[in-house]
């Protein structure tokens, strides 16, 4: 794979995962390496998209907000990529993946209720040329999302 993190990378990431505002100096002191090493490693991991340091906000802040899984089936398989790219452009969608099994594309978003979901799918997804049908699951309890892990793209 070549992109896999080595032992020291992982130790640095462990320090950064819960609170990425911790200083390079503090990480360096705790791991017994130089500050320059930490800085260079963090820079490389960010540049090579092995890690992403970012702010996340708490979904619990939003009352009546639910996560919706929208499965999209395409008319013809050669349209899958283009439709997935079109979906990735929709700002409300936080996840877009081309899938094998169950359906062709999975898109995930956050909505207020069933009505909001229906409206969103109707006006933002069903209108994309080549979308044959969609099937949605609406979340009633978003129990876990380990924000320390994601597929980093773009």
């Amino acid at each position, binding site marked *: 794979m070549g992109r*896999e993190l080595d032992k020291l990378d992982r130790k640095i990431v462990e320090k*950064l*995962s819960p609170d990425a505002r911790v200083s390079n100096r503090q990480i360096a002191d705790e791991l017994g390496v130089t500050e320059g090493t930490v800085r260079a490693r963090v820079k490389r991991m960010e540049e090579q998209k092995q890690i992403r340091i970012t702010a996340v906000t708490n979904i619990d802040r939003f009352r009546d907000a639910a996560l919706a899984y929208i499965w999209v089936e395409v008319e013809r398989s050669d349209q899958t990529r283009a439709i997935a790219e079109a979906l990735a452009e929709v700002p409300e969608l936080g996840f877009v993946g081309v899938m094998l099994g169950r359906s062709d594309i*999975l898109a995930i978003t956050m909505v207020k209720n069933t009505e909001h979901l229906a409206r969103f799918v109707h006006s933002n997804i069903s209108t994309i040329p080549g979308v044959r049908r969609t099937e949605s699951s609406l979340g009633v309890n978003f129990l*876990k999302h380990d924000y320390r*892990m994601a*597929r980093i*793209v773009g």
Partner: protein
Amino acid sequence: MNNIAATEGPGQIELDDTDQGIIDLLRDDGRMAYRAIARELGITEATVRARVRRLEESDTMRVVAVTDIEAAGFGMLLAIGVQVENRDPEAVARDLAAIAEVFSVNVVVGTHDIEILVVAPDSAGLNDLLSETLGRVPGVRRLTPALAVDVLKNQPDWVPFHGA
């Protein structure tokens, strides 16, 4: 994903434009210096520091390092629909959430009872995870997996802070 027009929950702090400006900048670059944020927003560094502390202490925002799944040694990402029998789906979901490879758990209404996102190192590891671990959680009847072959977008900045 911050485009939702949902109202704030009870007991939450009110966010103004300054808070939102700080969150937006830190979303782009979580390690941006307070001084640079202050300059960008035309406020003092002390204000930035105080606002960030308030956002963190109220559990509104966290600045974290997100590791790429491949860089962490997992080659496979799957979305699995879980059908439950003879047990409360919430209880099954809690058991699933305790498994490290299961990084997202959502109790849903639809064809399945629970939707989970999981990672596996390879197909042998995946097979173990499905049949030995997930399939044996009490109350799990059927697992319906879909393998992600191309992830075009993955920026969940909406996450529950409890449990993760």
